[in-house]
């Protein structure tokens, strides 16, 4: 199973700043291994962040996003002590969901 994400969320001036570190290979499908064979693509295709059941961020990613990607975003209206939930799905259909309490 995939490693957990590191999520930090801080409420400031009526908005919540969220920083997410994702552990993922993000293979483009363009690279070749030592024996010259193409390394099959394996990348995160969808990212979703929800706050109290409402989607606050939804993104479609492609192979151009870096390995172990870092995502930072801000949304309005979040409160300290509540939870933010982040989910990703990748091109192989694997997924992972983690949550963090807003500070």
């Amino acid at each position, binding site marked *: 199973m995939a*490693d*957990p994400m590191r999520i930090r969320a801080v409420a400031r001036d009526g908005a919540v700043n969220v*920083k997410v*570190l994702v*552990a993922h290979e993000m293979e483009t499908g363009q690279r070749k291994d030592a024996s010259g064979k193409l390394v099959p693509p394996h990348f995160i295709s969808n990212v979703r962040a929800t706050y109290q059941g409402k989607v606050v961020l939804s993104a479609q990613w492609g192979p151009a996003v870096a390995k*172990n990607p*870092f995502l930072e975003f801000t949304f309005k209206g979040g409160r300290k002590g509540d939870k933010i939930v982040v989910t990703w799905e990748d091109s192989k259909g694997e997924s992972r969901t983690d949550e963090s309490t807003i500070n």
Partner: protein
Amino acid sequence: MNRRSIKLKVVVALAGLAVVCAAHAQKKEAAAPSKKAAASATRDAVTTEFEKFRELMEDASPAELFEARGEALWKAKRGPKNASLEQCDLGLGPGVLKGAYVQMPRYFADADRVMDAERRIVHCMVTLQGFKAEDLAKQPFSSESRTPDPVLLVTYVAGQSRGMKIAIPQKHAKEREIFGIGREIYNFRAGPWDFSCASCHGEDGKRIRTQELPNFTSKEQAIRAFQGWPGYRMTGGLMHTLQWRLNDCFRQQRFPEPGYVSETLTALLTYVGANANGHVYKGPGIKR
């Protein structure tokens, strides 16, 4: 033609292909001062830009992902003896991690020798968990397919000293002895290029390609040997420790590569590390 000028010619010929220390590059550039000025302006811009990027990434470094994996590994019961590393003594008592990393290399009475962080952790894996040192030394460095256990463990332990001052002890006679040995190795010129560590890291303002090289003999710059290590390298996205960094320095000097967690590396880390005493360590970092 004397030996030195022959060597200079060979190095200049290789400049396009190989990594060349600025000790030689400077001689070449002396003939074209305007070119040199232009090169240094570009270098500063590149370095400044990367510094900005590093600052941005510092509170969200992918190194943290490796720290988390290392923590799970530290606490897990593993190896032939089915034990965790929680009883591992890193110099401040069994299981005490806070501040341990910034106080190694240090003398360990149970092993009767000075050990650096990675060497000590490997020692614990062998004595507490029953792993074989030979097995751990087989593939000690990170590759595309694998991050070795000691790398994850060192990254976790290093993270427990974030924001603390480097305080490598020099009280025990063996600690002072190995500091002296480290200084000897640092200045020892050998190999096909007649290099020593000091050839590149012995005076200010040297570089390899665009990478500025710290002068570790200076108190102000010695911290740069520890800062950012263990480091997540953007190139390839691999996590590396100081064992790898020093090994690669040996390789670049065309030296025989040192054994994994060998006495030689402990000596070098003691010498450079103790020079950096008093500086604040920022934890596992990010490298180009």
